[in-house]
């Protein structure tokens, strides 16, 4: 009986402590979103109080100053393009690797996995040179192609792992029924690996939404800049007008929040599998 009481007490005490720590962890995000609805004077007065009125002027002004809709569209185009290209390319390669036999298969797998050792920072200098040479600067396709290259290491690894669990008998049965290799890949196996496709797409989307370095190198045209680059410039030009800055920041974060709430399961599992296999 006594032990039960002790256990119960621990359940609540430890739980409360770790829950409060979690709230503290989320505090920065709360503060940003909350203060985005206040005028600069109100922020200066008290950053902790709830906004007295729903002050939307910040958002209007931030949208105007940041050229928000244009850069939102740019980011969305880049992100969606990256997801499509990277998913298709990684699935194809992983499917090929898992169906080739012997040394070939292992060799190619290793080739793609080792690519994760090359970080973008070690090649960014030459990518900028190359981008100028191949007229990839100020184009979305150039950025999407490079993103695709960097993403495929992760995608190939994740898909290959999952494809191992797809029973071969299924594919063989389909072959007997007259499906050719391409049909088996797209009509039989692709629907089966849907969870992986979800995981990989969500992560690709988040990564390219958050990406800053590559677009800042490759895209100079103000009409083509994505949100992250615009946000950074906005910060450098209007240093102290925090009410506009955090309103712009909040707008940029909203899609991330939405995706996190909807697809949290895929995000954590995907990142974990990526880390564990490398």
């Amino acid at each position, binding site marked *: 009986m006594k032990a039960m009481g002790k256990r119960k007490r621990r359940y609540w005490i430890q739980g409360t402590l770790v829950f409060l720590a979690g709230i503290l962890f989320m505090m920065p995000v709360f503060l940003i979103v909350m203060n985005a609805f206040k005028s600069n004077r109100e922020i200066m007065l008290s950053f902790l109080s709830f906004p007295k009125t729903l002050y939307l002027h910040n958002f209007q002004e931030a949208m105007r100053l940041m050229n928000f809709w244009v850069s939102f569209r740019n980011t969305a185009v880049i992100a969606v393009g990256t997801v499509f290209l990277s998913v298709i390319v990684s699935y194809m390669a992983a499917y090929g690797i898992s169906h080739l036999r012997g040394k070939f298969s292992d060799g190619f797998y290793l080739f793609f996995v080792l690519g994760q050792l090359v970080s973008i920072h070690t090649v960014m200098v030459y990518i900028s040179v190359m981008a100028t040479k191949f007229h990839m600067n100020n184009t979305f396709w150039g950025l999407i192609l490079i993103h695709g290259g960097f993403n495929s290491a992760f995608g190939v690894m994740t898909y290959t792992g999952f494809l191992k669990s797809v029973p071969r008998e299924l594919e063989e049965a389909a072959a007997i029924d007259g499906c050719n290799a391409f049909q088996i890949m797209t009509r039989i196996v692709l629907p089966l690996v849907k969870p992986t496709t979800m995981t990989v797409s969500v992560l690709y989307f988040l990564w390219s939404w958050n990406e800053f370095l590559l677009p800042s190198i490759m895209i100079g045209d103000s009409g083509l800049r994505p949100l992250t680059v615009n946000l950074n410039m906005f910060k450098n030009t209007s240093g102290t007008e925090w009410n506009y*800055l955090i309103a712009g920041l909040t707008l940029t974060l909203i899609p991330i929040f939405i995706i996190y709430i909807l697809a949290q399961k895929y995000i954590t599992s995907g990142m974990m599998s990526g880390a564990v296999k490398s």
Partner: protein
Amino acid sequence: MSSAFYKKNTRFYLALLIPAFCLYCLALIGPLFFGTVPSSFYDWNIIKAKRNFTGFENFAELIHDKQFLTSLFFTLKLGVVTVTLNNIIAFAISYFLNENVFAKGFTRSMFFMPNTIGGIMVAFIWCFLFTNVLPKIFSAAGLESMASISWFGSGSMAFITIVAAAVWTGSGFLMVLYLAGLQNISADILEAGEIDGCTGFKKVILLQLPLLMPTITINLFVSIAGAFKSFDIPYAMTGGGPAGVTNTIALNIYKDAFSTYNMGYACAKSVVLFFIVMAITCIQLRFTRKKEVQL
């Protein structure tokens, strides 16, 4: 039948690799082996339009380059501090989340959330906190000397801001991995230990940590590699300032390449960074593999 089917389609399977292979060459292999590595042997400046072969001169210059050595040292310092803090915090959180507590899933989500926010946005959030929120908290607490700290004015303070931001976004990810590791430890072992009097702190040190060694290996690998790639947060928070003391290697390379346009020199630094990351990864994997408990 099956073997014949796969054999017949070998060409098709090989062809499937072509797009990924091409993108890979475009983004990684080409720029690294045909761009960065050869260019590191040239004195190459885009603005001055010169490109002369100088052999190992760039690398010889690196050893005496104060800016580069500062950034190398700063990256190491940042790496050691963030990796340590990240892992300690992540382990502590996961330890409590692994115990019997309420609202587990929700609490876990709160800790993981910052990990999905990109570096630029994270830096931005913390800039706001350090310039607008913290001074007010300190002055409300009567700590006027703390309230008047200029967080971005001195190197050591700027270091703290970067560490805070990096730990905030980094630890949630490691927490999830630790949590998975803890849940994999069989309850029988822990129960047997408890019967033998191994409880509380002792249980953590003698049972859970040694059994977590594989997870610790992964986490160290992930976080050290991440520390050497840190760019977004220092770039957007301090811009390497004041006076270049918070430049990471990546930031130092970026500045060489895109503000002074010394491409050859920046490539030489990139090669050094590439080897550092590879070496650390190899050493670290070997070191922790040995300590893993075999069950």
